[in-house]
């Protein structure tokens, strides 16, 4: 293996400015070392609107921890689009994402992905992971929020007899509820997992109250809680935990979860903070592009629409993959409406819009 790079270097002398990978990629796209790709190996329909996509990643990928997510790039009408999806496979297994059709990108993934298709990838990341030391767990999930938790359950339950997991999963109906049968089978087979399905069409919205939780999981106070689901669901959980017990900590040290702590994973962020404001001329200095932007469009989208290669990640202000240095001007945080900006400051372009003219070092 040590001689391969040397051989590759020698071969490069023959084909500069191309690299050996440029030629190998003609035969197998996964060989590209510059861009991490994966080949879809299997697609399994989960529900009417969701599917699990298994893929074989190229080199540069690293094994995921249960609960992590990865950025997936797909091409829609010739244009590369990136989104983040939770990995649903158990840690140690071949990676797979479970996607629910909720937008242009997820629609293509759910409806039009076939084995052999190529996905663009970024290695797994995220802090929504299992505690390092065994603990009793309470998982609260809603809708597609079950996805990272499914990875945790698949990782923990069959392998660790000492695990103690209670899952409360809320969904509209049994038909749309992801992994329902597998969860029931796991709960039958392993005494260390208890599953409650809460179908809102029958029982109404799952409210976070002490009495309600006592009914679902009497010892909930002594468990480390994990929640993942739509924004309202998580906001409710956060408010409830804040009121009931210790302060909620959205970013705990793995394994250091206090009794009654709540770890949450968000899937979306409300970007209402920019409504009704003026934008300005955005200058991407290194790219030598200038674009007129309104006050509500994230700078990331502004750059991408202008054909600039923008670093990007979660697109909701969490992962900090999209940071760019500000050279001049002010930006508005679309989550809070706060206007800020010092030269040299790193800007989260996915949740920041122009507040007047803005120069970015990119």
């Amino acid at each position, binding site marked *: 293996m040590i001689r391969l790079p040397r051989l590759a270097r020698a071969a490069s002398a023959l*084909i*500069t400015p191309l690299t050996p990978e440029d030629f190998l990629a*003609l035969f197998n796209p996964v060989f*590209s070392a510059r861009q991490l790709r994966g080949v879809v190996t299997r697609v399994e329909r989960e529900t009417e609107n969701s599917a699990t996509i298994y893929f074989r990643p190229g080199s540069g990928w690293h094994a995921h921890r249960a609960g992590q997510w990865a950025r997936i790039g797909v091409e829609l009408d*010739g244009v590369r689009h990136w989104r983040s999806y939770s990995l649903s496979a158990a840690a140690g297994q071949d990676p797979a994402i479970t996607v629910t059709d909720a937008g242009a990108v997820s629609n293509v993934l759910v409806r039009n992905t076939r084995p052999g298709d190529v996905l663009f990838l970024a290695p797994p990341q995220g802090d929504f992971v299992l505690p390092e030391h065994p603990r009793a767990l309470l998982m609260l999930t809603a809708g597609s929020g079950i996805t990272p938790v499914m990875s945790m359950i698949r990782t923990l339950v069959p392998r660790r007899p000492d695990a103690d997991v209670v899952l409360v999963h809320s969904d509209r109906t049994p038909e749309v509820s992801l992994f329902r049968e597998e969860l029931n089978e796991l709960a039958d087979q392993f005494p260390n997992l208890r599953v409650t399905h809460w179908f809102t069409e029958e029982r109404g919205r799952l409210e976070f109250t002490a009495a309600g939780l006592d009914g679902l999981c009497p010892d909930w106070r002594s468990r480390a809680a994990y929640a993942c689901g739509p924004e309202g669901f998580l906001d409710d959980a956060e408010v409830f935990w804040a009121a009931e017990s210790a302060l909620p900590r959205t970013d705990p040290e793995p394994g250091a979860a206090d009794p009654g702590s709540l770890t949450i994973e968000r899937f979306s962020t409300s970007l209402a903070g920019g409504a009704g404001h003026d934008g300005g001329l955005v200058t991407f200095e290194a790219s030598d592009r200038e674009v007129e932007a*309104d006050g509500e469009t994230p700078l990331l989208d502004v750059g991408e629409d202008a054909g600039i*290669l923008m670093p990007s990640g979660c697109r909701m202000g969490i992962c900090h993959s999209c940071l760019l240095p500000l050279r001049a001007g002010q930006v508005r945080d679309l989550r809070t409406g706060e206007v800020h900006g010092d030269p040299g400051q790193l800007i989260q372009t996915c949740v920041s819009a122009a507040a007047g003219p803005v120069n970015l070092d990119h």
Partner: protein
Amino acid sequence: MTTTLTRPGALAASGHPLVRPPAARHLTDEQIAELGVELDAIRDDILAKRGATDAAYIRRVIKVQRGLEFAGRGALLFGRNRAAWIAGTTMLSFAKILENMEIGHNVLHGQWDWMRDPDIHSTTWEWDFVTPARSWQHTHNDLHHRWTNVVGKDRDVGYNLLRMDADQPWTPFNLGNPLYNAMLAPVFEWGIALYDLELPEYNEGLKSKADLKRDLKAMGIKAVKQFTKDYAATPAVAMLTGSGKQALYGTLVANAVRNVWAHAVIFCGHFPDGTDTFTEEMVEGETRGDWYVRQMIGSANISGSKLMHLMTGNLSHQVEHHCFPDLPSNRYAEVAVRVREICNRYGLPYTTGPLPKQVASTWAKVFKLALPDKGFFKKKKTTTP
């Protein structure tokens, strides 16, 4: 939501340039504004259509080019065999032409940036040409495309070497015009590399020493790599089959073929009869419509088959390329039909012709401008007291 401007502030919102080019003097400001709107509409149309088929097109061209490059260079390694040498040299010549023209030139213009593919992007692409991509983008995209055919501003008018416009003052050096041009053609890539260093700009104090040093270093590194690939590494590997010398001849010929071809095509872009050059007064106060007019009457097309368009990198649609430098090249053919119709309707010249005719026309200019203009000596006499 957002709109992209190529050069905000560079164009006047309304009005007219200090002097309008003669070919467009019959048009009113309103007509020129209308023409600008019509051309903008063509661009918007193509942007709306641009998609998966275009992406598939450029990827297919790249695939074919790499296949030719691989097979051609591979065949040259067995160049002792005459058939292998001919096949190898031919394939490598085609590969190099495709690489420079339909792929390199157009990718470096940002024609494919919209795909957001980091492997096919104007900011990451490097090409099989001596001049580094970034240096060329500066002199070509920034300077030539902005100042197209403005004598004194667009140094592509003669590349600091040739007298290509009657408004460029004649000196005895220009007597060598045909000789320089003939010598330039087979080593065109080295000429462009030298040109991109902008030595005259440095001498005139328009380019800093630090910038020149940076460009020199980048070019040096690139030149060594390019030279090594074609004239050392390939022949060295070919020596294993006893074909070292033949492989060297093969790469020399392929580079020369590409250089002569690129030189011919590029000279047909702005120098044939019928293309106009402009004074700085004609740019001052230019509106978007006037800018389009200058691009159209300052450029010339080459007519021909689909293969011809491909091998010229669609610079055979130079008029359309200059109006819309960052539209994907595979769209220029359909754009051309509409641009030509607009030119006809507004009474503007639309210069086009088959390659031999256009090449002959540029060479005629090269010869003609080697000599001083009629009245050159007379004028001199009258101005001497």
